[in-house]
């Protein structure tokens, strides 16, 4: 739906000027931010813990290294995730059990935060295709546009996150990733062009990762994308994205399986 807001881009073109301004913003109380990912592909749980900082602060995030972080599976078995420094916590060889629910919990400063996520069956990428595009659209240079291709399972609601990589570097920032649901394409063979950023060029190695995520994460990513850069023209009501964490912690916990492909454009 991002495309609709190309329309607002024209308004921006009409704009006679843009400038950096000084604004006094309030200092919010530091609030925990928990970014938890359980990747079935390498059986690893990675958690990053930090605190919010004031908006114009240029220091790096305030990491939390002294929290107690655990993951609990469907059967109630609790596993501790040790800190590896810089706010990171990592647990390897944690064997995935698809179609079950995992609970991540973080205890810090006397408060325990927890979030649940379903690890769902993985949908496979079929292939990466690409097409030459002469460019010119909003000043873009000519190049190759890649297409996401997969068969959506019928009669189940599926949600996806797509991450591209260029010559081995993941394009995983919020403004680079793609989300996809199957409301308009349930059970179809989907072929979707991935617009965004620059087009690819001959000899580029393009990787694509299709993550099968749960609905909460899908909504979270879309909300986060919509407020990224605070471009409120595309957001109905600017607010913090709805998180699966309780006790007002920010961030998300996602457990997902994925499928990867790679091609060289020629």
């Amino acid at each position, binding site marked *: 739906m991002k495309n609709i807001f190309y329309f607002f881009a*024209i308004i921006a073109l009409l704009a006679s000027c843009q400038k950096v301004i000084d604004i006094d913003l309030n200092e919010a109380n530091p609030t925990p931010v928990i970014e938890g990912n359980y990747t079935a592909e390498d059986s690893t749980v990675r958690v990053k813990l930090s605190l919010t*900082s004031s908006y114009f602060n240029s220091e790096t995030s305030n990491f939390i290294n002294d929290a107690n972080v655990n993951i609990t599976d469907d059967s109630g078995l609790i596993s501790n995730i040790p800190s590896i420094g810089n706010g990171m916590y990592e647990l390897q060889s944690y064997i995935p059990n698809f179609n079950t629910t995992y609970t991540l919990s973080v205890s810090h400063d006397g408060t325990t935060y927890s979030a649940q996520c379903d690890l769902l069956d993985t949908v496979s990428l079929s292939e990466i295709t690409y097409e030459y595009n002469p460019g010119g659209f909003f000043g873009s240079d000519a190049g190759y546009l890649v297409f996401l291709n997969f068969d959506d399972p019928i009669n189940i609601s599926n949600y996806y996150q797509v991450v591209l990589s260029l010559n081995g570097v993941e394009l995983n920032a919020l403004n680079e990733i793609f989300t996809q649901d199957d409301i308009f394409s349930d059970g179809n063979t989907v072929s979707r062009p991935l617009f965004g950023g620059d087009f690819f060029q001959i000899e580029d190695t393009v990787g694509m990762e299709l993550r099968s995520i749960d609905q909460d994460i899908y909504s979270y990513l879309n909300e986060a994308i919509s407020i990224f850069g605070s471009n409120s023209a595309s957001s109905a*009501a600017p607010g913090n994205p709805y998180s699966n964490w309780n006790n007002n912690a920010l961030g998300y916990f996602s457990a997902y399986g994925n499928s990867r492909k790679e091609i060289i454009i020629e």
Partner: protein
Amino acid sequence: MKTIVLALLLIITGSSFGQKYTLSGTIRDASNGEDIYGATIRVTNLSNVGANTNAYGFYSLTLDRGSYEIEYRSTGFEAQSFQIDLLENISKNIELDIPSDVQQLGEVKVNATKENNNITSSGMNVTRFDPKSIETIPVLFGEKDIMKTLQLTPGVKGAGEGNAGFFVRGGGVDQNLILLDEAPVYNASHLLGFFSVFNSDAIKDVALYKSGIPAEYGGRASSVMDVKMRDGNTKKFGASGGIGLISSRLTLEAPIVKDKGAIIISGRRSYADLFLGLSEEVPDDTKLFFYDLNAKANYRITEKDRVFLSGYFGRDKFGLGDDFGFNWGNATGTLRWNHLFSKKLFSNTTVVYSDFDYEFNIGSGNDGFGIRSSIQDWNIKQDFTYFLNNNNNLKFGINGIYHTFKPGSLTGKNESFNELILFERYALEVGAYVQNEMKIGSRLNIMYGLRYSGFNLMGSGNAYDFDDKGNKIDERSYDSGESIAYHHGLEPRISMSYILSESNSIKLGYNRNYQYMHQLSNATSSSPTDNWVPSSNNVKPQIADQIAIGYYQNLKRNMYRISGEVYYKYMANQIDYRNGAQLILNDEVEGDLVYGIGKAYGLELQVEKKKGKFTGWLSYTLSRSLRQFDDINDGKEFSARQDRIHDISIVAMYKVNNAIALSASWIYYTGDAITFPSGKYEVAGTTIPFYTERNGYRMPDYHRMDIGFTWYMKERKKFEHNLNVSIYNLYARENAYTITFEDNPDNLLETQAIQTTLFKLVPSITYNFNIK
């Protein structure tokens, strides 16, 4: 004794049982045969006895048998007086002339005779404009615009540059009922609000009701803007038009049969895209333009019957080569039949069709898809005016509107898209009202009325139930015509004025309004894609109660008008959205809505100079508009976006001589309330703003000065023309259109705030002509 009884009998029959007769007729403009709305008919030898013409120029005055001095008067015309011996019912049609010295200027001006209608009328808080009276006020791109001028009056606030719509007394943009010849206009702007859809050449009269709204109007919570199109010249052919930098317009009018009927056609086309081509950043095949067409015909079949057919058709088109197309527009049609059942009973029957739709086409070839959405109304209305006697003027009527909401359909050219059609919704909105305009003694005028309104949302279609978090928990399906939800209510309205003297009065107004349809728009900018949703099993009707009191004083023989008004408005069942709500192409959009209350209050002051070489006004509004929602801001009260605390506008027009007129305007208002981040954090290596409160910040204050210069060139007998030059934003104030927050591209550890400004110093030139 017998003689005394006889004398008493004579007195009684002469007074209370005296024969009453009715003087009635229509008042028209002698130059073109147009009906004059709101002209006054006054019995000069009695105090506070008189009548006003209705929208069709009709008046009716019932008096005792006798001899009277009757004066016919209207703003901008030479008054006429007659000695009338009312010995039977009399029909008298009057044609009023424009004073000859004013006529030469090619411009209608307030005449020099006493004008204190603002003091004596009971209608409170009606802001009324004749498009001709504002033609020298400077405007963006030189296109005179009645909606922009209304935004310079107290209590009315424009939604800002690049935004359609306006706010009235703290209410939302969707709470204004905008009527064009009785047809609702769902999107009153072109080019994202830079122009309104109203072509001033085709408009006769605009009235904006802010409080004490008459009972004949219903369906919106905040205000009514009633726009009446011109009827066309019944005397002779006429042509007028203008050529501007960004748009041109042409109006043609002619009698069908002289003095019996006329036809008028008015069209506009903009060519803004020609200028886009000059910018290197914009692709060559960019389209961005609008056109609109107003047409109206009227014919007087008999002295008692008259029919009107009017229509509006307008469209905006925007495109980028084959990759992207976006167009939207309104179409309305109104068929009216005026009938006089008697000298006292005036009837108007109206059938209205109104349609608004928008369409997107994105991508070309196999990857493309299109989105379509529309709202359609069929409206049947029967209104009566019964001129009971010279103290009571009754209005009553009924109407029914059948709404069809088509919130959206998506069609892809590629097989990976399933066709998606959001279910259509159907509703019948009904209304019935009765209202009396009453004079008590010579000082008190009261207009009181009651409106009943109801809204029946019907199948076929589905209805959903949602839990507290907005997740769908139940789904029911309904057959065609089956009621899904019925909402209704009584809307009392009262408006009264107490005349303290010929030059000052006090007015009081109360109104309750129900609104059954709600527009969903995002926080900072409105766009044609803002869908309307009907009240349903989840969405309750908005209810607004407003009380207002005002004091009005005219000074120096009505040369100056001073007014002060205060109001308090309480709004129930206001609508807002959950964070991250998806408003487009979402069948379950009701789950994303949350409900709360709103209140607005304020003080409005205005000083206006009506006569002389120098005219204009100064207005100041001090107001608040607050909202409270359980689900937003932890239940704490927050500012509505339009909570502008101070709002000032100054409009000055100076007529140097018969050939040159100068004008200037300046506006200032407190920046809109807006949500800014109070912190930041990182997710997926990306900086995300951290919000702590809704609308807790302010945009920078807005101010701007515009100037205009009009040169009336030498006039011929049948031809007049002028040249208008204006500069928008004279001192190039960089007003914020948006403020966005982003990473500093030069130093990714830093974040910065970026302000975007739309217009700095926009000059324009327009040539206008009129063939008489």
